């Protein structure tokens, strides 16, 4: 990763060993030969079909954070932001100094600037851990992920590493492959306008995301995403969080066509006033 401007300080060997041990201890399926084997699809791939959802507060802030009051006074306790342990490996996102300032500005002007407030497609990886379910539909050539939030969706093109996308997209361009039990997806061609969460964490058009979906049990996936953006970060960094199968009877995605819910926010000032 020599193209990154500064590399992280090398941790003392003992600390590294400790970290590896800790990770192995808490992560199901991470080594020790105890890999869970998922049921197979008719074409013999791990079966990730189903409706999944993240729990937790990564959508508020990928980094660890305390609970705090929400911005809408009338929502009171129901509108407050719950605390979270964070999902970033190593706790902190390695921003370049200018980008850290930008993030602070985003956080200060969150509601005006967060694209998800306007019901814009959340991009990847944010779509994965929005507090809404998403459905995976697997075929040998394509894997569709349909998200409830904003009716966003994306197609993962399997085993076509040379398939280039002609432009940028809010949900990026997804090319996938199987690596043992894991679905690995390289996501490129992101528009610069999406964020990672509601704390102002962001990226540029140089973003490249490598996602890894690994079944760890019949109703759980481990979601990992490695995030690279040499314009914004000092090195690649990684998030990891579990995804849970929605087991509700007759579970299905419902519509959340949120354009309707953002119209007053976006266009309200242009409405014809009563009596005019």
């Amino acid at each position: 990763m020599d193209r990154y401007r500064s590399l992280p300080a090398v941790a003392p060997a003992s600390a590294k060993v400790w970290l590896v041990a800790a990770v192995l201890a808490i992560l199901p399926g991470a080594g020790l030969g105890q890999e869970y084997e998922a049921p197979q699809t008719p074409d013999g791939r791990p079966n990730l079909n189903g409706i999944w959802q993240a729990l937790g507060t990564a959508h508020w802030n990928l980094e660890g954070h305390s609970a705090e009051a929400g911005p809408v006074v009338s929502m009171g306790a129901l509108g407050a932001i719950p605390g979270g342990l964070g999902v970033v490996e190593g706790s902190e996102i390695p921003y370049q100094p200018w980008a850290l300032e930008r993030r602070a500005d985003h956080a200060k002007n969150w509601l005006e600037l967060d694209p998800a407030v306007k019901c814009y497609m959340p991009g990847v990886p944010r779509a994965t851990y929005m507090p809404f379910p998403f459905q995976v539909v697997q075929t040998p050539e394509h894997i569709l992920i349909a998200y409830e939030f904003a009716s966003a969706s994306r197609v993962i093109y399997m085993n076509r590493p040379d398939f280039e996308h002609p432009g940028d997209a809010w949900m990026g361009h997804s090319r996938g492959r199987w690596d043992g039990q894991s679905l690995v997806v390289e996501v490129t061609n992101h528009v610069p306008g999406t964020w990672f969460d509601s704390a102002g964490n962001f990226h540029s058009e140089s973003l490249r995301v490598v996602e890894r979906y690994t079944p760890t049990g019949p109703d759980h996936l481990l979601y990992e995403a490695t995030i690279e953006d040499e314009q914004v970060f000092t090195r690649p960094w990684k998030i990891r969080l579990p995804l849970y199968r929605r087991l509700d009877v007759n579970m299905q995605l419902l519509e959340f066509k949120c354009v309707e819910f953002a119209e007053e926010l976006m266009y309200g000032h242009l409405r014809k006033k009563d009596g005019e």
Partner: protein
Amino acid sequence: MSSPRRIWNRAVAAGLSLAMAAALAADENEAAAARADWEAPRTTWGVPDLRGVWDFRTITPLERPASLQGKAALSETEAATFQQRELARRNKDRRVADGLTVQQDVGAAYNQFWWDYGTELTEDRRTSLIVDPPGGRIPDLTPGAKDRYQTTRAARAGPPRGPEDRGVAERCILGFNAGPPYTPSAYNNNIHIFQSPGYAVLLIEMVNDARIVPLDGRPHLPGSIRQWRGDPRGRWEGDTLVVESTNFTDKTSFRGSGPKMVLTERFTRVAADRIVYEYTVSDPDSFEGPWTALIPMKRTAQPMFEYACHEGNYSMFTMLEGARAAEQTDAAPENP
């Protein structure tokens, strides 16, 4: 293999003369469609394979033009003339110099490059996508539906008071060809069908809308839950995927339909590169009778890409700003 034949029979019954039907049967593709021994390819779990990207462009209008009343299909010569005339009429590169008024010229905001409604009639040269009623036109609206329609039309006619006065397509809630049901329109007439055991997914290019259709026989959503696209449930009837949708909202309308619409869509793969898409709109609250349209879908090797609509909807701002500015101008006292 009764389904393709049933569809074929329906097309014939819809008004094609027997001679015409015989002529059409000679057409290579239609012959493939009607061939009794052709069997749709199967998925590995044994259902007909509808997967892939399908293109449903055509200049055959949904309703039969009044000038073609009583004529369900055109001869080859008539079709060529119709196509030529229609393409000339729709050509958006015509300007004032070509005889347009200034207003028409400005109205043709997108030049021809952006339009992609196809260049041909359906292969059977039909004059309407509607095959039932045989007249090829949507049955009359009921009095209640007429009132609804008038209200909407009045709102659309003037400068918008707010975003709700514009259609759902301009608000980027649903694509203009996304229905449901799907009906060919200005561009991006493509649908990507996915299947996994227990599901079919209909992903239309316009606004990336994925309709996820459970095939496990579960009941519809309770009536208290309403959706812009309704609530689809699917089943196989022979080799035909039948999708029935209910639970529509009262906030949108397909050609006058209301929230009680029952939409039945049928997808039949009739050849390696063809799906026949047939839908029936049944809504006694809104229409004096049910009606059915038949739309051919052709396989395409092209992928679909994201259509980000709301994210780039500058037009909604400018339309509303324009409307407010016009009110200021209108309200200002005229210069003495």
